[in-house]
C-alpha cells in the first residue's frame, strides 16, 4: 500500500483533516472519510456530473480529482446549500417545479446550476440547457430542471 498523505481542506466552511492514499478520489474522500454522502458517484469518468461540487468557487467533478489535489482547497457540497435552516432558492425552485425525481443527479445538478447562475444571472432557456448539460438526468427530461433554474435565477436577481 502506498504511503498515506495528509489532506487539509475546508468543506462548507468547516475545516477537515484526513489521511488517505494518494490515489483516493476526492469524491470517495468526501463520502467515506468526511461522511458527506450527499455528493454522488455516477460514472467515475467525468461524464455524468452527479459528483459535481464547488472547488475554490468553481464547479468541478470530484470523481476525476484526487483528494490530495484538493489539499488546501475550499469546497462546497450540496450539504452546504441550505442556510439557517432555510432551503436555498435553487432548492426551493427544484421542489416547486418538479426538477427532480429519483434525486441521484440532484446534488450535482444543484451545484452546477449554482455555479452557472453565478456566471450568468439572467440566462435564456437555451443558455440554461447548455449550462446544465454537464450533468445527466435520466428521470426528468430536464424540463422541470430548466423551469426551476429559470425561476431560481429570477429569485436570486430579486435581491438576496
Amino acid at each position, binding site marked *: *500500500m502506498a504511503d498515506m498523505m495528509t489532506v487539509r481542506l475546508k468543506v462548507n466552511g468547516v475545516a477537515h483533516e484526513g489521511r488517505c492514499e494518494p490515489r483516493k478520489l476526492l469524491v470517495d474522500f468526501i*463520502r467515506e472519510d468526511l461522511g458527506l454522502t450527499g455528493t454522488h458517484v455516477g460514472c467515475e*469518468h467525468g461524464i455524468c456530473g452527479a459528483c459535481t461540487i464547488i472547488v475554490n468557487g468553481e464547479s468541478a467533478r470530484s470523481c476525476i480529482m484526487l483528494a490530495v489535489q484538493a489539499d488546501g482547497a475550499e469546497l462546497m457540497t450540496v450539504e452546504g446549500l441550505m442556510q439557517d435552516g432555510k432551503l436555498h432558492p435553487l432548492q426551493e425552485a427544484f421542489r416547486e417545479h418538479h426538477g427532480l*425525481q429519483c*434525486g441521484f*443527479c440532484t*446534488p450535482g445538478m444543484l451545484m452546477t446550476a449554482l455555479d452557472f447562475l453565478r456566471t450568468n444571472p439572467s440566462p435564456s432557456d437555451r443558455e440554461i440547457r447548455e449550462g446544465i448539460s454537464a450533468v445527466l438526468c435520466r428521470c426528468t*427530461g430536464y424540463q422541470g430542471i430548466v423551469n426551476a433554474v429559470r425561476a431560481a435565477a429570477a429569485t436570486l436577481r430579486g435581491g438576496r
Partner: protein
Amino acid sequence: MTDPRSVGPAALPRLVGARVARREDPRFLTGQGSYVDDHRPARLLYAAFLRSPQAHARIVAIDASAALALPGVTAVLTGEEIARASKPVRAASKTPAVKVTSFPPLALGKVRHVGEAVAMIAAENRYVAEDAVERIVVEYEPLPLITDMERALEAASPLVHEEAGTNLLVAREFARGDVDAALASAAVVVRERFRFHRHTAICMENRGCLAEYATGSGTLTLRSSAQCPGIVRDVLTDLLDMPEHQIRVIAEDVGGGFGAKASLYPEEIATCVMARRLGRPVKWIGDRREDLLATTHAWDEIIDAELGLDRDGAIVGLRAQVTADIGAYSIYPWTAAIEPVQTISFLPGPYRVPTYRGRTRGVATCKTPLGPYRGVGRPPAVFVIEGLMDRAARRLGLDPTEIRLRNFIRDEDFPYKSPSGIVWDRASFTASLLRAREAMDYDAVRAEQARARAAGRWLGIGVASYVELTGIGSAIPVAPGVPIATGTEAATIRVDPAGKVTAVFGVASHGQGLETTLAQIVADEVGVPIEDVRVLHGDTALSPYGTGTYASRSLVLAGGAAIMAGRAVREKMLTIAGHLLEADPADLVPAAGRLAVRGMPDRSVTVREIARAAYTGVKQLPKGLEPGLEATRFYDPYYGTASNATHLAVVEVDRATCHVSVLRYLVVEDCGRMVNPLIVDGQVHGGVAQGLGAALLEEIVYDEHGQLLSGTLMDYVVPSACEVPWMEVHHLETPSPVTLGGFRGMGEGGTIGAPAAIANAVADALAPLGVEVAELPVTPERIFRLVSRGP
C-alpha cells in the same frame, strides 16, 4: 376483488388531482437521501467482481492465491464455491414457449458473455478489492462464439446453453383469422424489415447492494438498489434455503430503475453468500463500466412485418415475425420471453386488426442478458406498427393522422379484445389524436412544412399513437408464464394513538414520487391533512406482502389497496366517533382532522381523540368493538387497464451534417384519473427523453468477438438537456372503469411513443427522397447512408 363501480367518493376528496409538491424532495435536495452506497455499517467489507474478458470460453482454472496474499483482502468466491451455498437461478415459466436455463451467480464451467461475473473479492476497501481482482489468474479456453441472433438459429451454430439443445429459448405465436388470405386480397400491402437496436437504461445510480448476516439470530438483511424487494426476498429464500421471515430486503432510496433494476442480479446473491460466509457486512457498488457490461440490456429486435389494407385504408391483416437477441441468460423472474413476447402481443396497437399472425423468437447469444426496460417490447412494437401505418398512408395518399382515425378501435368497441387476447377496457384513441392535431395546429405545421420543403429543407412531422396495458392484475402474468404473484399489492394503514397516519406498502418508489401520490390518496380516504400521513415502502420487514414497483402498476395496485384500507380505517373511525358523540355514524361529516355531527359543528371529535379511544380508552369503545385503528387490504385489479397517448414530433434534418433537431414535441396522454398532474407531467417528460435517446442517440454496440464497444458514457450517449426539446403535455382523463379510483398506470408511456414519433418525423422529413426509416437509433451516420443511397 372489489367492484370499482361500488366505490363512492373519498372521505375528504381534496388532494387527489392536485399538484402537490413532492414530500420526498427535501431530503434529496439537501443531500440527505439514503441510497445503498450511503450506508457503512461497522466492520464493512467492500466487494469487487472479476468479470470475463471473453464472450464464450471454458474456465480451465482459477488461481486466486496472489489476490488473497494482498494485505487487506479477506476472501474470494468463485463459481464452484458459490454453487455450494446457493442454487443456480432458473427463471421458471408455466408456458412451454420458454426453455428454462440456468443462470449461475458466478460463472460455472464456462463464461457466456463479456462482463459475466467470474469471481468476487471482499476486502477492506474498494481500492484494495479492485487491486485483488487484477491479481486473480483465470485460464480460459476460448469456445466458438455467436453474436448474430439469426446465425445463432442455424443448426451448426455453437450453443450458449447445452442443456437447451438449441439457442431458440423462446418461441410463441398469436393468431386471429386467416391473415394469409386477407393479405393476398388486400388492395395495398406494405412490408418492412425493422431493426430496433440494443439499448440500456442507464440509471444515474449504478446498481449496488449491501448484505449483513446476523450470526446470532440467523437473519439476513440485504439493502439493494432494487425496484422489487419482495421478489428478491422471495427468491433468496429459495436460493439460499432460508426461511422467508429471516430475510429482509430493503430498497430505500433508489436512483432510478426504469425496469433495469426489476430483475434479480448475480451480485445480489454473491454479496449475500459472502456476508453469510464471513459474518461481516459486505457491500458492492457497481461502477459505470459494470453497469454497461452487466445490467440488463433492452429491445434488440429484428421485426419482419407486413400490413394489408383495403382501398379505403382500413386494415385487413397484419403478419409479423419478431426475433429478439436475448443475450446469454434468461433473467429472473421475467425470463427471456418478456421482450419478444411483449412485442408480438402489442404489435396490433390501438387498431382494429381483423386478422393477425404474430410469431416471436427469443434467441440466446454471447451478450449481456436482455431484460425489461421502460416500455418492454412496446417501443419496438409501436415503432413497427406506426411505421407501417405511415408507409400505408404514403401509398394511399392519406394524411398519417387520417389513416389512424380510420383504423382506431372506436369508443363503441370497448371492451375490445386484441388479436393477442388483451382486453382494452376503455381508451381515448380518437380523442387523443384529434386533441393533438388541434393543440399543435397541425394543418398550419403541415403548411409550414410545405414552405420549408420548397426551400429545400428537410422538415418532418411524425405521429405515433399507442396503447399500453398497465396495472395488471392476477388474471394475466406480467411476463409470460411467470410463476410469481404480480397481480396484487397491499396497503397497511395505521392511525397511531396521537392521530397520525402511517401507510405501509410493498411497492418501492425509485423516483416516481409514490410517497406523495399515495399520501394524497390516504389523506383523502382517511380524512386527515397530508402532513399527518407518512408513507413507508421498499422494506419487506415493514410492509404487507408485495413484490415492488414495475410494469406501470404501483399507483393502480397500491393506490387501490390504499383506498380499500383507508376506507376500512375510516369506517372504524366513524363507528368510534359516533359512539363518542352519541350520534349515528351516518350523520357525521368530515372536516380536516375531525368528525362533526351534521349541522352541529360544535359537536365534534378530533382524529386524535378517536385514535386515543381506539387504543387506550377501551371503555369508550362500543361494546364488542376490537381495539386498535389499522387495516391491511389487498387489491387485485384482475385484468389491468389501458393507458394511451398520441405523440407528435416536428424535426429538422440538417442537410450538411444529417443531425436531427427536434423542434416541437407534443403529447396528449390519458392515464385516467390523475392523482398529481405535476408528477404525471414529470413521468411523461422523462419517458419522452428516454425515447428520444433510443430514437436518435443510444446504442449498445458489440463487435463480432462479443466485445462491448460502447462501454463508457462517451460511447453510449444519453441525451443531455441540449438534445431534449421543450415538451408540451396535454391530458385527457378517461377514468378507468375497471380499477379502484379510476387510475391507469403511466410510468412507461413516454418511452413507448417517442421512438416511433421521432422515427416517423425523420422519415417524413426524408420522404421527398423516397427513403424509409427502418432502423433505430437513426443516427446521423445512418441518415447519411440513407440519403446517399436513395430509394
